[in-house]
């Protein structure tokens, strides 16, 4: 019986505690830098698209909300012809970000993307592409890749040796 009164008194004292409620539209939630929100496509330091159209994000997506078509430019650089994310399906799990080999697709701390029409939640490439390097500044896939896609010549990349002339016998 006494413990019941003690419980009631302690619960009553909660009246004077600080409330945890955040008055949302007026007060904003503190989002952390790695919060998994809206998905964006980032660019490399030279302003080119990082996405190489490998389809790994699309394959990793558990709800199949990513659709893309890869293509190549005249230099052999791969890029997505279209890149479409249906945010009405997306569950913001971040698997696409984990799967991406070129740090192109990233989740950013923004969740305020309500729309009045469902069709407006389907984001095309121009909606997704941002003019920023996102969480990995300075990274340029074609600078460290072995191939020549118009960014650098073969053998001139970081940690890359010049190609060996296989017809020469000199060491």
């Amino acid at each position, binding site marked *: 019986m006494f413990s019941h009164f003690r419980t009631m008194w302690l619960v009553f004292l909660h*009246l004077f505690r600080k409330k945890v409620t955040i008055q949302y539209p007026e007060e904003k939630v503190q989002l952390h830098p790695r919060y998994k929100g809206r998905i964006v496509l980032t660019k490399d330091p030279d302003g080119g698209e990082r996405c190489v159209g490998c389809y790994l994000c699309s394959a990793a997506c558990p709800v199949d909300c990513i659709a893309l078509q890869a293509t190549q430019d005249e230099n052999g650089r791969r890029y997505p012809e279209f890149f479409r994310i249906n945010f009405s399906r997306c569950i913001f799990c971040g698997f696409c970000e984990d799967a991406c080999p070129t740090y192109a697709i990233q989740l950013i701390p923004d969740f305020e993307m309500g729309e009045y029409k469902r069709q407006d939640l389907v984001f095309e490439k121009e909606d997704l592409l941002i003019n920023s390097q996102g969480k990995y500044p300075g990274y340029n896939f074609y600078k460290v890749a072995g191939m020549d896609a118009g960014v650098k010549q073969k053998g001139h990349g970081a940690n890359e040796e010049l190609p060996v002339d296989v017809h020469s016998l000199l060491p």
Partner: protein
Amino acid sequence: MSTAQHIWTVIGVLFVLLNIAAGLIWVERRLLALWQDRLGPNRAGPLGLLIVLADTLKLFFKEDWIPPFASKAIFVVAPAIVAGTVLISFVIIPFAPNIVVADLNIGLLFFLAMSSIGVYSIVLGGWASNNKYSLLGALRGASQMIAYEVFMGLSLMGVVMLSGSFNLGAIVEAQRDLWFVVTQPVGFLVFFIAGVAETHRLPFDIPEAESELIAGFHAEYSGMKFGMFFIGEYLGITLISAMTVTLFFGGWLGPSFLPPLVWFILKTFFFIGVFILLRASLPRPRYDQLIEYGWKVLLPLVLANLMITGAVALYLKDS
């Protein structure tokens, strides 16, 4: 009192009570939220008060649905019984020296009788729903009410002995020197616990028990029929609070810087707050624990209280 005055009293009491019952939706949600470190509904209107209007409108516009397997007539009548009996119980409560609807000389017995009839709404509602969970809730409700009805009545007999009357006005007058909570603390505690069980509020909401019986006896109800159960519950809280104040805390008596009616309302709202605090703090006991607690602890306690009060009253009368 003249007839016109009578009619105005009835209308006034009805108006105030129904508004209080609706307003308690907001009071309860806000208070519960504050005690759980939240803010609660604060958007619609000033301080969120219009949530009451929104809730009521929502209930009114819901489809008034009767399940095809239910027993229709009883299903419809059941929610009206609970609200009706509780409202009728209010006629005997003296809100202020001259504001009472019916000054019955057996007022207390009338109150006990009406709260007993209130059980029928639970039993009939659960039975007519033709649903296993509802029936279980109805069964629990019936046995809980019978158990707690017994010593609810007995716990009040001490008050009746001390004041020598069943009339609530006379009981209030008898407390002019000393509130009965001082002379009858056991009676007060037992009455309040029984009152919580009688209104089947948490922690004694065994007939509803959301987590076990998915709302129990009113699982099949929706729309304004559910709303009637809801109003009945809030009116019940108000009734038990008002009765506690009348019987043990001196009713409308109080220092004269406030009018009697204000004292009565203040005290009543204090006990409504206690009801909500009980809900916020105590967990629900198991069903057999509840019944065992009633018959094995509270009943002997209240009988002992009755005997001692009677002995003391006799001794004081002789000397």
